Structure formats: C-alpha cells, structure tokens
C-alpha cells in the first residue's frame, strides 16, 4: 500500500526518525542531570530543616519526598521499604527511567525544588507563552525578511549590496546576547525610550485587558528587535550567496536573454534558492532558540530562559530538565514540520520518493 503513496511514506519515515530522536533526547534529559551527585531529597530536606526541625518530622518528610521523586522502593502499604539499618532501599536507575518516561508522556514533569510543592508544568505554563510570543514571530518574519533582503542584495549588487551586505555581516557577527545588551543600554537606560527589563509593568497581572496588552507590547519591542535583527542578518547572508549561485545558472541567463521581466526572474530565483534556505532554517533553529533564551535573560523577560536561569541558580533539577525537555521537543516539532513542508515543496524529493529511492 505504501508503495503507491510516496508522500505518506515520506511522512511516516520522518515520523519514525523523529520519534527515535525524541527517545534519545528524553534519555539525555534523564541521564545527564543524574551524572552529578546532587539529590533532590537531600536538597529539599536541607531546605526545610533550616532552623532545626525534630527528627520524626524530618523522617516523615524524607519518606514523602522519596516517594514523590520515585527514589525508593515502596511496599504494598505505601510505606518506603527499608533495609536492616533503616536506610531506604533505592530504586534502580532503570525503574526511575521508566517512571520518568511515563510521567513525561503524561505531561507531568514533577515538582520544582525551589518552589516546592509547585509543579514544574505549572511554572512552564506561565513562562511558555512569553517565549513563544517572542520567538515564533522573530524567527518566521526574520527569516522571510532576511531572505528577501539577501536576494535583493545578490540581484541588485551595486550600491544596495555594498550597504546591505557588510551591515548584515557585522550584525550577524555580534553575538545575540551582546546585541541585546547594547539595545538595553542605549534604548532602555540611556535614552529611556523603552523599558529596559521585564515583560510588563510592575503593578499589572497577566490578563486579557487592554492595559496589560498595551504594556506588554511596549516591553516587547526591544527583545523582539534584538532577536529579529540577528535572524535577518544571518539569513540575508545565506540567501545572498545562494542567489549569487543561482544567478550563474543557465535558466537565469536564458531568461535574461529572452527578456523576461526582472521581477519574474527574481521570483524564479527566489523560489529556487528558498528551498536550501528552508532546510538551513531547520538546522539553525536550535541555535536560534538557544540564542533567544539568552536574550530573555538579558531583558529579564518572564519566559523559559529566565525560568532556566533561576532553576540553575537554585540547583532546581526538575525545573531545569523540564525546561530543556520542552525546548528540545519544540525544536523537534518545528524541524519535523519543516521537513514535511520541504517534502511537499521540493520536486526532487517528491521524485526520489516516487522512484522509491
């Protein structure tokens, strides 16, 4: 059946591949934080027994935490199993792993250590909209504008290229975080045109009111620009060299000889150069998202980047791994979508599917 549906076959193949990638990502997410000797139970108990708590209380707490983080074996009565010395019997790493996978698949990322007993998923739920609102438009529109500018620079050459190209080269060489710091310093602190840090006015609470949205949009401008301009710069450079290559191809020369309208040639060239750029976008997504997370920290923007920062400062492992898992999954989903899209757009891939290669 699959033989007659090359597109379906392509989609299924990619789905399988991304599923394997997801499994590897979730395994990394599980194993790496456990390489160190940090233990959430000890951290929590140290935190809760500051000021001296009685022993019975500590044991009860330890028991509860051990169960919560699935670190000790539990008997049928819901009590932690203990050995002869009264030490809790540890669960094996494998059993912890399956517990972790099961929880993650249910969307349960455990509870935060710093803000115990708040769930990690709750913290992420409040942070995620900010990150999405910042990253999605910057990457999509930045990519589009960057490609248009790059194509124009390649096609027009001359003065336009001489201005746009060095400018984009410089902008893309400035690391994303440096660019953010520059914007905060000049437009936020020196000129005071825009608020320097935060996502909205201090007195407001996130809600769907005109006042809140106005405030949030005002705070949005600087972080948006700092990521947007970097994406535009990077994409324009890639598109420019892509288009210079396309300009040398026979179909462009032939179209020019035929006297085809300039805008039409530009359109054909653009369409052909776009595909590699789209694949390039899929590969660059991870870096872009990472850069934008750092930008959030510079602007104290209330998104995932800030959540990761506070989690790292407080050794809050469940929160760190929750955030990293979410970011990874988002990047995987975005990549998957681009992959499928390219499959539909690129006639070469379609042909390869049809010949069964």
């Amino acid at each position, binding site marked *: 059946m699959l033989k007659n549906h090359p597109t379906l076959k392509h989609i299924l193949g990619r789905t399988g591949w991304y599923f394997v990638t997801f499994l590897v990502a979730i395994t990394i997410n599980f194993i790496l934080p456990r390489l*160190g000797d940090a233990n959430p139970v000890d951290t929590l108990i140290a935190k809760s027994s500051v000021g001296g708590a009685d022993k019975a209380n500590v044991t009860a707490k330890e028991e509860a935490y051990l169960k919560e983080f699935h670190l000790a074996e539990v008997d049928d009565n819901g009590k932690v199993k203990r050995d002869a010395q009264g030490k809790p019997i540890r669960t094996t790493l494998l059993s912890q792993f399956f517990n972790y996978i099961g929880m993650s698949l249910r969307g349960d990322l455990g509870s935060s250590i710093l803000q115990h007993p708040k769930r990690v998923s709750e913290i992420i739920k409040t942070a995620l909209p900010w990150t999405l609102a910042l990253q999605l438009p910057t990457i999509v529109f930045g990519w589009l504008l960057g490609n248009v500018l790059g194509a124009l620079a390649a096609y027009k050459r001359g003065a336009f290229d001489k201005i746009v190209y060095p400018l984009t080269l410089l902008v893309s060489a400035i690391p994303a975080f440096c660019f953010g710091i520059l914007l905060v310093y000049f437009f936020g602190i020196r000129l005071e045109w825009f608020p320097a840090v935060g996502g909205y006015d201090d007195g407001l609470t996130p809600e769907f009111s005109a006042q809140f949205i106005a405030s949030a949009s005002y705070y949005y401008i600087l972080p948006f620009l700092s990521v947007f301009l970097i994406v535009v710069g990077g994409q324009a450079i890639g598109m420019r060299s892509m288009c210079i290559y396309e300009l040398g191809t026979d179909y462009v020369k032939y179209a020019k000889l035929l006297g085809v309208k300039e805008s039409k040639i530009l359109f054909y060239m653009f369409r052909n150069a776009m595909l590699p750029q789209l694949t390039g976008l899929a590969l660059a997504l991870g870096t872009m998202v990472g850069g934008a997370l750092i930008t959030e920290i510079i602007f104290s923007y209330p998104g995932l980047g800030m959540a990761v920062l506070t989690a790292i400062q407080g050794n809050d492992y469940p929160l760190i791994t929750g955030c990293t898992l979410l970011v990874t999954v988002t990047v995987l989903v975005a990549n998957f979508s681009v992959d499928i899209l390219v499959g539909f757009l690129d006639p070469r891939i379609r042909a390869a599917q049809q010949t069964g290669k």
Partner: protein
Amino acid sequence: MKLFKNLLKSPSFVFGAGLFLATLLLALLGPLFASVDVNTRVGLAFTPPSGSHWLGTDHLGVDMVSLLIAGLRSSLYVGFLAGTVATLVGTLIGLYGGYKGGWVDDVLTVGTNLFLVIPSLIVLILLSSSIENGRSLTLIALIIGCTTWTWSARAVRAQASSLRGRDHVALARINGYGTLGIVLFHIMPYLLSYIFMVFILQTATGILSEASISMLGLGPYDSISLGKILNEAIRNEALSDGAWWAFAPAMVLITVIVFALYIINTSLEGVFNPRLRK
C-alpha cells in the same frame, strides 16, 4: 608558499588575520605590559575610567584591564580547545563515515543528524549543571567541543564521500592500504584546507558557547572569562548604573574575535575555492 602569497593578496584575509593576531598578542603579551591582578580591589565599585585604571573597575572594585586580559586569555583558550576537540571528533566521524559508506555511514549519519537537531545549548546546560563542583575552564571547553562537533561531521562527510570514488583511492585500496590508512593519507590531505576552515568556525563557536553558558551562570569556577565578566556585570546592575566600562569592552572583544574568525573563514573560502573568487 604560493597559497600563502595568494592569501596575503586577499585584503579581507589580511584584515581578519590582523584583527585576530592583535587580540592574540593582547592576550599573550598583555601581562608583560600591564600588571594583571584580578584579586585585589584597587578602588570603589564601578569607578569610571581614569589615568591609573584605563577602563575603571568592576562591581568589586577590581581593575577592568586586568580582568579583560585574564578573560581574553581564558576565552581564547576555551575557543582553541573546544575548536580542536570539535574538529577532531567531527572530522574523524565525517571522514570515516564518508569513506566507508554502507551501514557504518548510515549509523554515523543518523547519530550526527540526531545531535544536530537536539539543540547543543540544551545539552550544554544539562551537562554543565550536572557538574556542580569542579566546573573548570578546561572541562567546559571539552564539554563544548563534545556538543558542537555535529555540523563539522556532516560537512566533512559530504566532502569525503565525494572523494570516495576517485581513482587514487581505488589504487590505494588495491595496494592493500587499510581503511585508516586510506582515510588519513589518501582522503584527508585533499580536505586539509576544508578542515582548517571548519576548525576556524568551530573556534568561533567555542568562544560564543562559553559566553552563552557563562551568561546562564554556568561559567568556570576557576577562572575569569569574557562571558563571565558580562554575566557578573549584568547580575550586579552595571547596566542600570550606567557603568558601560564593566561590560562594553568584553562585548567588543568577543565580537572582534568572532568577526575576525568569520572574515578569515570567508576569505579562505575565496582563496581555496577559486570559483567563488569572482
């Protein structure tokens, strides 16, 4: 020799290499001309630049020039070490897979693509945060190298697999060379210029990655790096205090190094690949 002459003829190479050499000399010879002391407080917090302290002091009152020279040395060290590790790992995997083909290549390619899709910053965060004590500069460089090799493996693989069918490779095989011998002596020499370019880009990536994770508070505990200077400045309100000297010079240094490396890379591309020269 002729290659070198060609390189010197390219103005952008001379510009980039000059810029990079300047930062390298500053890092190497700086301690000879300025007394680098990052542990002594020489003034109040965020003292503006003056005759005795050209770039003022940081939030603790430590001389910024000292901090910058020390930071530059660490950042360049991280860049070179991470770049070397990433190039080595990426090149070996790419060359081997590209030459071998078949299922070995398939496995290596799938592995590479896998780690290409999973954001390297995320792996960096996970690895560095799990090492709570003993996150030294060298360890950070090694971790960066082990997370950023992916795209160089991909790039080198593509080049190596195009060389696989060449006659001289077949001749070497008939003459009884082993896989390692063919890869090292009959394929790699053709890609040396390419691998050198990969190394330059990986070095830039290493410097940027160090700065990124230092911004997240995961910097080295045992030394000062440019990223750590930035992190400390931001955490201690240098921005709102208007103490530009506490963060601007470090930013300029990072940008100049990375920009210089990018320019060197683009100009090398032009010299090694004459088709692009027009």
